[in-house]
């Protein structure tokens, strides 16, 4: 740029000054003409409005000159100027206009053009005093306006076709910073970085005005091509990265300043902020609602400290300080070299404020230091009709949407066992964009490399690959398949295979579609997706009972539900086969293992009435909390039951010999050698937290779900021993448990039993008797 755009704007302002001054025919006394707004500060774009303030000594004088004023304005219009004028008395200029904050703001940039100099001088004297005295309401109005404007653009500057004036990080935000300087009583004092951004944005806005020959500020794809060509700066996508760099500088400066001013003006906020400073710990301190490193130089020796900061962000929802950001940014190569372990990343991704942490990892560059595979989607513009944001921003908005998902999607999210895996799937779902070839295949490749490097468990890797590979499956089905055609459900069930994957894919679809632009996820569409989820869920639960393994390499596997094969890897199957062999010789086999935060008990035994209840009872008698359970039977009548449980008193950790005792007790109970009721007499009394919102127990029977069994679904408030009570109510009624799937979310237990009596569905009278006893069991203790 040979000539600075700002001087071109000033030239234009000077031209207009001359026209206005020449065209005026107003009384010389009691009236003055002021330039205000952008024109006032000599930043006049070719087709912007000319903001004039006609200052009249009194309202009466203004009314008397009504026709003179309109003649004057008409002359300016005829000269080709788009005038936007207001007529005010000095008194009106020095009062706070809550309904019209723009008027107060426009006066910050006023300058004298012509007319009664004394009248103007009087206002010029009063104005600084007014601004000083009304600083607080003016700042409040200004920041409210800015916040509303940001919200209109979803609080992001990563728009594919941004409005260079209004979008976050645009000229309006630059101006906001200047105004806040002025309201503090000084002159605008932008940093060199902001001045650069201002020149860059001004150049674009001039270009847009001249191209459209009107006040048009949207940086369209067409204009991006034109500007890229003009600057000889590679292609438009590359040129746009420059735009985002400048917009980011402006937006971040503006939001920081807004936060600082808002914090000052709200004592309630200050109290909250001070309370948050108590979150400080030996590594991090929270000052003014931002996290700082206590000893930043430690970062040189412990690169993991950077990830520790993001874990803090994810846990407490407090953003990093500017210092912390810069300290991390300065050490990115080290972080990249060192890499990150999945265990550490999963901790960040599982915490409640994970989206905020991911956003700041992205902002500081830490995300692409850990996952260089994501670097090429940064600020990447992929042009289509629907997407509104760059690929990286779309991805982060999707992660945020996951946490904001309403209604049934919120419940579904609570059922996700490994949220960190789902989050990684979203993070990489579009990582293949911009590569030229199929973005799905490339995305899977990129994710595969990244997951191997961070050493993610194999089963989780498979889930992520599945999610990326199929991330468009459900939205495609919504558009092109008849949801109520049974074939749709069958086809999709064959693709997703398990309920767990279906849940993750449904949530990913919800997050992905709603991150395309703020209006695309209408209630209509959300409902369509939910319908699709329901029919596929129904299909998968139906299959649970009816789809069985037919030909298997080992007789033990024959007749197990196909779900078994889909949810267990080769190593687990080997372990189960070893247990089956043990069962052959001993009549029962029980295995207890640590599973990350929980424990798992696996048992194989010949089926007998009350077996499942007995196993559940032996765990309850030890004070264990059952989180999930599955029970399957094979063709030979052997059962394979798996219980995932939590050990609230860390009994098994602290006394390893207790593991053997638990196994022994379980084996005796399973084989019927000890009385289960006797066991439970000694069980620790349940201590339930008193909660106002109790979960109402619900029992429902479904005969249509399976061809050979009756499905019972029970939703109840979880409590110790609940599963035993339910299972023994079923056994006592003489029904046989074929398949069980037990899940808990917070205090809610969700249990699905497939029951038969004499190898058939339960007759209606048995169902109603059983319903009563199950309902009794779901009553809180």
């Amino acid at each position, binding site marked *: 740029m040979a000539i600075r755009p700002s001087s071109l704007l000033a030239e234009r302002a000077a031209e207009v000054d001359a026209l206005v001054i020449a065209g005026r025919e107003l009384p010389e006394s009691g009236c003055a003409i002021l330039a205000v707004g952008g024109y006032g500060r000599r930043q006049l774009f070719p087709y912007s409005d000319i903001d004039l303030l006609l200052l009249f000594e009194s309202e009466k004088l203004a009314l008397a000159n009504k026709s003179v004023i309109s003649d004057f304005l008409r002359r300016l219009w005829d000269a080709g100027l788009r005038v936007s004028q207001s007529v005010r008395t000095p008194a009106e200029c020095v009062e706070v206009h809550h309904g019209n904050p723009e008027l107060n703001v426009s006066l910050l940039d006023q300058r004298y053009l012509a007319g009664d100099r004394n009248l103007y001088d009087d206002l010029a004297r009063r104005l600084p005093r007014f601004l000083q005295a009304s600083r607080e309401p003016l700042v409040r109005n200004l920041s409210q306006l800015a916040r509303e404007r940001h919200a209109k653009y979803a609080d992001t500057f990563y728009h594919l076709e941004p409005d260079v004036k209004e979008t976050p990080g645009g000229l309006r935000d630059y101006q906001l910073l200047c105004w806040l300087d002025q309201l503090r009583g000084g002159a605008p004092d932008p940093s060199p970085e902001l001045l650069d951004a201002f020149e860059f944005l001004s150049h674009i806005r001039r270009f847009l005005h001249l191209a459209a020959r009107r006040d048009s500020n949207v940086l369209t794809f067409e204009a991006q091509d034109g500007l890229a060509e003009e600057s000889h700066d590679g292609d438009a996508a590359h040129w746009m990265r420059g735009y985002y760099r400048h917009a980011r500088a402006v937006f971040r400066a503006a939001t920081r300043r807004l936060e600082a001013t808002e914090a000052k003006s709200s004592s309630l906020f200050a109290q909250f902020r001070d309370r948050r400073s108590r979150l400080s710990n030996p590594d991090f301190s929270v000052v003014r609602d931002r996290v700082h490193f206590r000893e930043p130089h430690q970062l040189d020796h412990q690169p993991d400290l950077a990830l520790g900061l993001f874990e803090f962000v994810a846990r407490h929802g407090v953003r990093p300080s500017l210092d912390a950001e810069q300290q991390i940014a300065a050490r990115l190569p080290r972080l990249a070299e060192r890499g990150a372990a999945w265990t550490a990343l999963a901790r960040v991704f599982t915490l409640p404020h994970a989206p905020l942490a991911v956003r700041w990892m992205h902002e500081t560059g830490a995300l692409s230091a850990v996952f260089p595979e994501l670097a090429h989607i940064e600020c990447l513009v992929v042009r289509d009709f629907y997407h509104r944001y760059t690929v990286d921003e779309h991805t982060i908005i999707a992660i945020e949407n996951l946490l904001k998902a309403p209604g049934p999607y919120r419940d579904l999210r609570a059922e996700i066992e490994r949220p960190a895996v789902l989050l990684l799937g979203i993070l990489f779902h579009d990582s293949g964009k911009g590569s030229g070839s199929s973005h799905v295949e490339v995305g899977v490749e990129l994710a595969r490399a990244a997951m191997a490097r961070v050493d993610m468990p194999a089963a989780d890797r498979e889930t992520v690959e599945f999610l990326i590979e199929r991330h468009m499956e459900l939205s495609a089905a*919504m*558009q092109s398949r*008849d*949801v109520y055609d049974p074939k749709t459900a069958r086809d999709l069930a064959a693709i997703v295979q398990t309920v767990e994957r279906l849940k993750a894919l449904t949530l990913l679809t919800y997050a992905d579609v709603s991150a395309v632009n703020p209006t695309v996820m209408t209630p209509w569409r959300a409902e369509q997706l939910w319908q699709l989820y329901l029919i596929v869920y129904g299909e998968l639960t139906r299959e649970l009972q009816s789809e069985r393994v037919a030909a298997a390499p080992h007789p033990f596997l024959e007749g197990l539900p196909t779900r078994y094969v889909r949810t267990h890897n080769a190593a687990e199957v080997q372990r189960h086969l070893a247990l089956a062999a043990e069962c052959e010789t001993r009549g029962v086999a029980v295995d207890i293992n640590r599973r990350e935060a929980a424990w798992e008990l696996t048992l194989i035994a010949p089926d007998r009435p009350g077996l499942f209840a007995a196993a559940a009872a032996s765990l309850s008698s030890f004070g264990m909390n059952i989180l999930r359970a599955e029970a399957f039977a094979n063709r030979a009548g052997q059962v394979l039951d798996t219980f995932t449980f939590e050990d609230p008193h860390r009994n098994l950790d602290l006394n390893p010999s207790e593991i053997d005792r638990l196994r022994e007790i379980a084996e005796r109970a399973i084989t019927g050698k000890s009385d289960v009721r006797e066991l439970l007499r000694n069980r620790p009394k349940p201590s339930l937290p008193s909660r106002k919102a109790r979960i109402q127990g*619900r029992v429902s029977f*479904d005969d249509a779900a399976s061809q050979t069994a009756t499905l019972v*679904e029970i939703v109840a408030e979880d409590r110790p021993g609940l599963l035993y009570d339910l299972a023994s109510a079923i056994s006592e009624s003489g029904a046989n448990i074929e398949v069980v799937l037990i899940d808990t979310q917070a205090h809610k237990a969700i249990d699905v039993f497939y029951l038969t009596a004499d190898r058939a569905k339960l007759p209606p009278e048995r169902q109603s008797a059983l319903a009563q006893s199950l309902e009794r069991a779901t009553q809180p203790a």
Partner: protein
Amino acid sequence: MKKIEAIIQPFKLEEVKEALKSIGIDGMTISEVRGHGRQKGHKEVYRGQEYTVDLLPKVKLEMVIDDSRYEEVVQKIATSARTGKIGDGKIFVFDVAEAVRIRNNDRGDSAL
């Protein structure tokens, strides 16, 4: 001039649009709607909770066509939206008294 209003299955939208494009019709208004006709909806059970899906998601197409072509358009929509099952939707045709292009005040057929 006739106004055509068609309520169709959402998954048929692309097909119908393509079919109309093939006979040169590409101006239309599309909205996401809910409703039911004789296909009364049904009950779903999820997590032990029964809930009725009585208003089914549908798509509504609206367009105004000059008199000489509306039969052809109605036929095109009907054949492309048909699956033969309950819930395929309906087409309504209305007489239109006047059309005005806001930009230049064109009237009648030339405003379409």
